[in-house]
C-alpha cells in the first residue's frame, strides 16, 4: 500500500467534482509502482465521471497542455511514466493557461 497525494490545479478540478486535493492509496508495494500506475488509478478512482477521462488522457498519456509535477518538479526531470513512486509523494496536474 502506497499513500500519495494528487492535486488538480488551474481549472483541471472540473474532472473531480471541483475537489483540488486528493489522497490516493495504491494497492502496490513501494518499488513496484510507477507513475503509470498513478495515472491508471487516477482515472479509475479520482475522476468522477468516466466521460471526463479524455480531458486528462490523450494517446495513452497525459494530454498536451497539462503540466505534470512530481513533488513540485517537472516530470520530464523524473523519468515521466517510469518514475518509481514513494509514499508521501505529491503529484500535481495543472492546466496551462493562455489568457492575458
Amino acid at each position, binding site marked *: 500500500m502506497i499513500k500519495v497525494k494528487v492535486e488538480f*490545479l*488551474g*481549472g483541471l478540478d472540473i474532472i473531480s467534482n471541483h475537489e*483540488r486535493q486528493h489522497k490516493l492509496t495504491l494497492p502496490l508495494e513501494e518499488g513496484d509502482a510507477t507513475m503509470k500506475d498513478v495515472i491508471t488509478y487516477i482515472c479509475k478512482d479520482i475522476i468522477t465521471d468516466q466521460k471526463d477521462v479524455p*480531458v486528462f488522457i*490523450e494517446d495513452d498519456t497525459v*494530454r*498536451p*497542455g497539462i*503540466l505534470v*509535477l512530481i513533488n*513540485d*518538479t*517537472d516530470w*520530464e*526531470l523524473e523519468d515521466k511514466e517510469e518514475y518509481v513512486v514513494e509514499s508521501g509523494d505529491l503529484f*500535481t496536474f*495543472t*492546466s*496551462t*493557461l*493562455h*489568457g*492575458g
Partner: protein
Amino acid sequence: RQESIANLSLEEYMRYGRQMIVPEFGALESQLVLKRSKILVVGAGGLGCPALLYLTAAGVGEIGIVDNDIVDVSNLHRQVLHSTDTVGMLKCHSAAVMLARLNPHVTVKEYPIRLANDNVFEIFEKYDLILDCTDAPAVRYLVNDAAVILNKTVVSGSGLKTDGQWTILNFAGVGPCYRCFHPKPPAPDSVTSCQDGGVLGPAIGLIGINMALETIKVLTGHYKPEQFQPFMCAFYGYHFQQYRTFKMRGRQKSCQVCGEQPTVTRTLIERGELNYQVFCGRSEPYTL
C-alpha cells in the same frame, strides 16, 4: 553639469534613488543598464497594463507596445492603464499617453498592428527582451519562435479566472523555450481566453507585476546563463497555498525551434509555411 552625474540627470537620480539603494538591484550601474534597454510588450491587456506601469516607473529606456485592440469598457476592471475616457481608443495609444505622464524619460513606441508571420521579425529585432502578454496559444508560439530565432529572452505570463503562471523562456539563448515545455499545442477545446472565461483583475495583475520584476532581474544581470534554473511560478488565488514554484526541464534537444535539428526556421515562418492558426487547430484568427 546635471548630465555629468554618470548619464543620469539630477531628476532621474532622485526619481530612481529608492531602487538604486536596494543591494540586490545593483545601484547606478543597473539603473544605467535599464536606461539603455529596449523591451517589447506584446499585448496591453490584463498582463501588459501592470507590467508596463512598473517597467515605465522603473526607468527602462525604450518600451514598444504591440496591440491592435481598442479599449472596451469590459476591459477596465483589470486593464488599469486605460480609463473610462479612453474607451474606443487604441490600447497602445491609451497606454502610451498614461505612461508618458508617469515617466517622461521613457520612450514609448506604439505598434497598433496584429503580430503576424510577416511583421514579427522586423519588430522583435529592435528590442532586447520580449514580454509575452498575449491571450492565445497561436500567438504565443509565434512570439516564442521569433524570439528563439532572434536570440531574445522572453518573459512570459498567462492567467485565467483566479489563477496564473509565469516563466522565463529562451533565457540568454540557453534556457528552455515555450516549445520545450509544450511541444504539442493544447486541444482547442481546452483553451479559454480571459474575455470568454472571465478573470479577476488583481489575479491577472499579479502575474503582470511579477513579469515586470522578472524583467528587471533579467536586464540587470541577476540571472546568469551558467547558473540559470528553469522554473515556472504558478498562482492559485483561491487556494491556501496560493503560490508555487515548479522546477522545470531545461532546453530539449528534440525541440523543434531551439533543439539540435530545428525544423521551425525564419524562412518557414516568413513565407507563411507555418500557419499558427492551423497548428493550434483553431479556425478563427487569434486576437491579442
